[in-house]
């Protein structure tokens, strides 16, 4: 990324990547690059584990974790737990989105709403979700309802803030245009403000899914629920010295997050095809 600068002080054109050089388009190229990235990460971890700074039974190398992860993937018992977690995470994120989008549009559009609600929101969202788990357990037990609530609580904030900032960065000329045609407020929100904020909201959604997943699993671990990936992590860890299974389950949780993200991105690609092409 360094621009070659000749000694005479004449500026030469910095090499542009991407534009001229034919970008290897399509799924194949992306897949190859992605695999390369994943391979580097795996190798780095493997090398670190092989240094044996840490007892291999406590932190096994990738070559131990990955086959175990593959085995888990074929184990119906594990897939059932994945489903349990997934339901909680998707449910929670859906609840969060249902709250965050209207609220975010409101706060992003009206200075008064922002002024009045920001103190409450900023205080609330600094409350660690994990700290309120015991209180949630008290009210709703250790089951699905509790998990959905805690996921919704943590997924709310990235969605909310990305909506607010997205709404605020709508091009003022676009808004003036809508106003000049007397497009009703709700319709303006729906057709002008939301599409324009959509790319950032989708980023919020991706964050919310990942956060929701990690916290959902954290909640499963923290309250020792009866199901979910967290339970599947907790059980072998309570058996002792089953780091391979524990880390295999952790790895698969990461993979699940990756898949969720991928689905979101793929789904979003069509929605925001215009992004980065025109103004706003």
């Amino acid at each position, binding site marked *: 990324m360094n621009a070659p600068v000749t000694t005479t002080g004449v500026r030469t054109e910095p090499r542009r990547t991407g534009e001229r050089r034919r970008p290897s388009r399509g799924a194949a190229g992306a897949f190859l690059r992605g695999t390369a990235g994943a391979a580097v990460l795996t190798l780095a971890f493997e090398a670190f584990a092989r240094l044996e700074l*840490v*007892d291999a*039974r*406590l932190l096994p190398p990738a070559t131990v974790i990955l086959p175990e992860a593959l085995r888990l993937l074929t184990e119906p018992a594990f897939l059932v737990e994945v489903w349990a977690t997934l339901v909680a995470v998707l449910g929670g994120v859906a609840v969060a989105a249902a709250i965050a989008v209207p609220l975010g549009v409101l706060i992003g559009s009206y200075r008064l709403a922002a002024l009045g609600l920001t103190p409450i929101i900023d205080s609330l969202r600094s409350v660690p979700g994990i700290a309120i*788990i*015991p*209180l949630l*357990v*008290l*009210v*709703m*037990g*250790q089951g699905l309802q509790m998990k959905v609530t805690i996921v919704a609580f943590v997924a709310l904030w990235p969605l909310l803030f990305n909506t607010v900032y997205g709404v605020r960065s709508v091009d003022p000329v676009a808004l003036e245009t809508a106003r000049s045609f007397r497009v009703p407020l709700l319709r303006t929100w729906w057709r002008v403000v939301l599409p324009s904020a959509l790319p950032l909201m989708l980023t919020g959604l991706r964050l919310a899914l990942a956060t929701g997943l990690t916290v959902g699993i954290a909640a499963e671990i*923290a*309250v*020792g629920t*009866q199901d979910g990936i967290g*339970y599947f992590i*907790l*059980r*072998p*860890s*309570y*058996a*002792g*010295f089953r780091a391979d299974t524990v880390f295999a389950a952790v790895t698969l949780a990461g993979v699940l997050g990756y898949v969720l993200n991928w689905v979101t991105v793929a789904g979003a690609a069509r929605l925001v095809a215009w992004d980065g092409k025109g103004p706003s």
Partner: protein
Amino acid sequence: TPGTATTTTITISNPANVSNVPLHLAIDKGYFAAEGLTVKADVDLGSGSTVEAVVGGQVDMAWSNVVSGLSAYAKGLGIRLVALTDTAVTGSQQVLVSKNSKARGLGDLKGQKVAVLSPSTICILNVRSGLKAQGLPADTVQFTPVAPPEHANVLDSGEVAATCTSDPFRTLMIDRLGARPIYDTSSGELSGYAVGGYLVSEKFAAANPKALAGFRRALLKATAYANANPAEVKAALPEFTTIEAGVAGKVIVNTYLETADPVALRPQVQRIADAMVTYGLADKPIDVSGYFVPNAS
């Protein structure tokens, strides 16, 4: 629904440990059914939230260690003890140091950290009483709560000088990491302490005296059976705990308490309550007389 007088279903949240074997035996052998009870035992893996679940009425009953239960009781959370399960024997909980450690006894840990499983555990009482016996001040070592599965990690990485660990982790750490016990918590002033028992909410106790009496009878029967058949206890362990069969054989099994009348257990519990005050886990004396669910029959 739980909490009404007609209830015959009891849901129990219990950790997957040795203490809860009789409960599962009682279920398997139909002792509860014989008392007209349906007992559903949910294995809870090491969470800190079982007391909350009991108070909030999300479960009817939960197993908790005696110190945790007492401290919740002392904070006025409205819980009651239905039954105690077992008492510690030598080897059931030990202070372990790593293979390379030079420490020989508690005194050698001066100024260092010991991992315990929670900030309210009997281990703290025991270690402090051990220190006192050697004429050392209570703050000779610091305690830091670490979930039992992490004990091996924190000891291996040298983050703590010692861990206070129960089975099965104790056995595993000795076996696999070469950890070495330097102190047995049942050796001191509190030797033979009660490990834990079943808690219900005040409301539940008041509403279901008959069911709880039935529960006690069935549990007592299972307890007697367990004490008489240690081999079967070890065989049952892998079924409902996470302990693997290979390890289960080496696990130390506590003595299960065969006491029909909870009031007889009062001195046992009061002794621990007093120790909590002495060793700084409670700031004022705890009177345990109201702690027990009275026997209805």
